[in-house]
């Protein structure tokens, strides 16, 4: 029951924020998310340390449209739980970070933000594929509005591009969802969209491959996998800070989550056959994203392209499909959420003060804003995969796990470490060090509010980097269950 309440509460909080005044809307949004976190807390504490037969930590089943086999089925396991916690934490950081940035139509802004978050939470919970698709679409429109209304110079174009890409991917996925339901119907005579029922549906190899590709396409656009990534830099760059944080930190993860939850277990044979391709796409993404990030002069665009590179590791890990690799993918998702979210907040703070995102007009800012410099340095180091930060744990686990599957791809992906060093150091060098590009400008260091947000992100990254065990223990039973399905059918 609690799952339903979390989604409803988030939506209601959004509606309330819309009707509230400028100041009130911020507090309402913040309060709602905090309340959500309080509701989720007990689930996190109650999570079983070992897989003890029970697969779902919480479940909600309600009838909805029984004639079409559509029901309200929400359930979470450790994997969803981690991503839900990440959603709420980043949601809070995003609200706090845009406290002063958003001055126009504040209420509507927070409504949209909360609607996106509700959609994301729903995606991480829904087990009915029809409902899943509904939440999938729910994320889309408010996000596009966030970009189109509160974005920067080329916001309309970026919003449309984002909408078209994800909508196209979503429609292909919808076709696959319907196809899957019909195949299942033809097979058993039961029309259902319920995930536990659909897992293990036998089907001819060609059909399986086609349907799997439909799912993969929908998720790969979100992830994003090269070459479907080109909406991302535009959307991330033009979005307001909170939008970028939610996009990079959360929206991309829905793609990875979808692959883990649906694409692999429902279509095990096809996924196994497709794995080399997906791993190659992941590796290409790692390298290509890093090279592009390195060449950018727009700071926000630079950070945006790093996401392409980091999510490449997630794709590689998911399809390497071992315990270690998939655990790595999960840690990488969380760490990337914090590090990239933090970097976007930092860039937002810089843009607010300097009125520019161009690296050519920064430089030497350390003198005026050392606090910003230290935190920016830490986030950049996390981003380049320095041990002691969460990103390292994620990446190294992915690499250790994918080495037996493909030494060549692993070696290439590891070599991208050097590129990550190059772009991350370029980022800190061109902003904080060297001569001042515009000596006249005065720069205020981070406020207490901004410092708190970034310190929280940095501390989270260090915890993930030095003691990721709670995360691994939470995710493993879930991943194990998903892999069992995947493995059993594949071995047959």
């Amino acid at each position, binding site marked *: 029951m609690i799952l339903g309440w979390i989604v409803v509460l988030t939506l209601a909080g959004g509606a309330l924020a819309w009707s509230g005044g400028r100041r009130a809307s911020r507090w309402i949004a913040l309060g709602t998310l905090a309340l959500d976190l309080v509701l989720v807390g007990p689930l996190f504490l109650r999570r079983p340390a070992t897989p003890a037969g029970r697969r779902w930590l919480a479940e909600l089943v309600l009838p909805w449209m029984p004639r079409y086999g559509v029901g309200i089925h929400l359930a979470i396991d450790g994997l969803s739980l981690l991503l839900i916690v990440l959603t709420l934490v980043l949601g809070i950081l995003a609200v706090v970070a845009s406290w002063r940035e958003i001055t126009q139509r504040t209420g509507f802004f927070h409504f949209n933000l909360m609607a996106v978050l509700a959609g994301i939470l729903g995606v991480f919970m829904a087990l009915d594929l029809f409902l899943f698709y509904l939440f999938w679409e729910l994320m889309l429109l408010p996000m596009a509005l966030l970009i189109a209304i509160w974005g920067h110079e080329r916001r309309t174009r970026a919003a449309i591009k984002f909408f078209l890409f994800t909508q196209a991917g979503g429609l292909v996925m919808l076709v696959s969802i319907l196809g899957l339901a019909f195949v299942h119907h033809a097979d058993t005579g039961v029309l259902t969209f319920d995930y536990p029922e659909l897992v293990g549906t036998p089907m001819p190899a060609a059909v399986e491959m086609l349907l799997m590709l439909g799912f993969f396409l929908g998720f790969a656009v979100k992830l994003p996998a090269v070459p479907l990534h080109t909406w991302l830099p535009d959307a991330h760059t033009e979005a307001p800070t909170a939008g970028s944080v939610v996009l990079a930190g959360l929206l991309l993860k829905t793609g990875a989550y979808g692959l883990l939850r649906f694409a692999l277990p429902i279509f095990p044979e096809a996924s196994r056959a497709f794995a080399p391709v997906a791993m190659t796409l992941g590796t290409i993404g790692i390298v290509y994203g890093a090279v592009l990030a390195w060449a950018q002069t727009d700071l926000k665009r630079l950070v945006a392209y790093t996401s392409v590179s980091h999510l490449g590791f997630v794709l590689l890990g998911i399809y390497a499909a071992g315990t270690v690799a998939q655990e790595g993918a999960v840690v990488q998702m969380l760490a990337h959420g914090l590090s990239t979210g933090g970097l976007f907040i930092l860039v937002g703070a810089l843009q607010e003060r300097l009125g520019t995102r161009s690296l050519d007009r920064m430089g030497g800012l350390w003198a005026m804003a050392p606090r910003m410099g230290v935190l920016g340095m830490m986030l950049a180091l996390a981003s380049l995969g320095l041990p002691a930060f969460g990103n390292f744990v994620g990446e190294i686990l992915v690499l250790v796990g994918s080495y037996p599957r493909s030494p060549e791809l692993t070696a290439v992906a590891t070599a991208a470490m050097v590129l990550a060093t190059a772009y991350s*150091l370029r980022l800190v060098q061109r902003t904080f060090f060297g001569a001042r590009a515009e000596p006249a400008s005065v720069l205020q260091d981070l406020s207490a509010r901004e410092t708190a947000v970034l310190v929280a992100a940095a501390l989270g990254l260090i915890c993930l980097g030095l003691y990721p065990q709670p995360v691994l223990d939470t995710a493993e039973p879930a991943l194990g269950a998903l892999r069992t399905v995947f493995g059993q059918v594949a071995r047959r």
Partner: protein
Amino acid sequence: MGSIALLLLVALPLAGFVVLGLAGKRLRPAAVAVIGAGSVGLAALDALGLLVRFLLEPPEARVIRQTLWVWLDTGELHPRLSLLLDPLALVMALVVTGVGFLIHLYSIGFMRGEEGNGRFFAQMNLFVASMLVLVLADDLFFLYLGWEGVGLSSYLLIGFWWRDEKNGRAARKAFIVTRIGDAAMAVGLFVLFQGLGTLQISEVAARATAAWRVGAGPAVLASALLFAGAAGKSAQLPLQTWLPDAMAGPTPVSALIHAATMVTAGVYLIARMHALFELAPDVLAAVAVVGAVTMLLAGLSAIAQRDIKRVLAYSTMSQIGMMFLALGVGAWSAAIFHLVVHAFFKALLFLSAGVVILALDHEHDLFRMGGLRKELPLAFWTFAIAGASLAGLPLVTAGFYSKDLILWEAWASSRGGPLLGAAGIFGALVTSLYVGRVILLAFFGERRTVASVRPGRVLAIPLVVLAGLSLVGGLVELPPTLGHAPSFSWFLEPSLPAATAAGRRSDMAILQGLTSLASLSGILLAYLGFLRHRRADEELPLVGPGVTGILASGFGFDALYDLCVVRPLTRIARANSADALDRIFEGLAALVGLTHRALCRTQTGRLRTYAAAMVVGTVVIVGIAVLR
């Protein structure tokens, strides 16, 4: 007791880093100095206590293990954050904390009045803590954490004076080039884990010897990749180009990180993994050859440098090359012995050069120095002692004993041979030639710049202590020809197997005579070339400007890499900065727009056109129907 002392060893500098990192700005300079140097000083005392404890124990009991916590545990992989103190680790820890403390002490004087004092000491402490993790780690993943930690502190400290873009470039170059080696090393760890199912260091050694025969594929691959990592960190060919530029950092940083400790991490890694490397004789041979070639090329480059710190940087590369040569021929403890002695005299060379640099108001150019012997007697004498030790002046210097041992092993051990031995002797000649040149140019001849500052006591103490160590530090290992008391190798024996060189004592004496001769004639050559016939500044005597230029540029590796790697990569990245793949989708959008406009044209609003189109359409459809 022992395990707490072991924990403190890492915890003390780490605590110093945390305190200074959080509160460095608010503390008074004196407090910063006390915390910064004090934390390392206490760690040094701690290490000394552990040494005493070890010496009181029988050799087989000289090991302490302490697990902090399991870093992560998933599948087969469960790396622990665990420390291992054995004789090898203790020797390294003593060097890191001991020499480290002296350099911290020196830094108090050297960095006085600099902006960002707290930041400086925080980063120095971070370095010491990371370096201790590197040498004490019992798990290769944990070692990797220290490995990257020292790389980070090196980057931060090279770029300490951040306002100058040049320093930032040097700092990034150091980090990026070493990370090429690090990436290779990471793949090496994957190979090891895949093959052996563990990354715990002693376990890796045991399982590797059990599972792989000599020359087995995975053993060769893994050790080659670890060697690449070691070469990056230790500035060996072909990843050596970052070290001379790294001299952009403050001089104490160069002394600590880029001379005494971090750059020798590669030597430590190979010595630590010697059981693995012994399974790959080809890789070991490559280690020896790369070491020998680096030793010679860097030594020759050192002769032509104008910047006093760059001479020392090339010298460091050259000396580490000699250590790699020792590793390659299986002279494990000789390599570590030279590492320790080198830490003494090279740190001292940098520190006394620092006194000169400080006195001449940050002048690095040798040709603007000269005649400083009288004005800066302490700097002169300590530099001369360290230089003599570097040149391996017979009998009286520590460098003589360590270098001699390596050359003997290179010559006589089963993996060595006359070629490697001869290279070593030539290297000794080159070494004393460039040392002699620096001393003559800086301290003799006519005076060119007036010294403004004289070193205070904080600067003097470390110089004197290190000078003492540079002289007598070699007596812990006396060769068979001179008393035969190899206590250093005995101490290391639980960690490192004894050397294999077998030869007659008379051969050894002949070799010692040859190296002594080489070392002395190098100094004589320097005297003849740079003092007696002092010529126009830039050029080296006898060889002309062309050769001088090649040597000065370090054989042009920078230009080569720039041409073959950096520039093409930059060009490609820049050219594609707008992301060519996006063109596909933008093209698709443009195509849709084009079709849209084309179809719009047909909406003319004229009835005639519509009627005509309808007629044509009808005819076509009917025509198709009829013809089918």
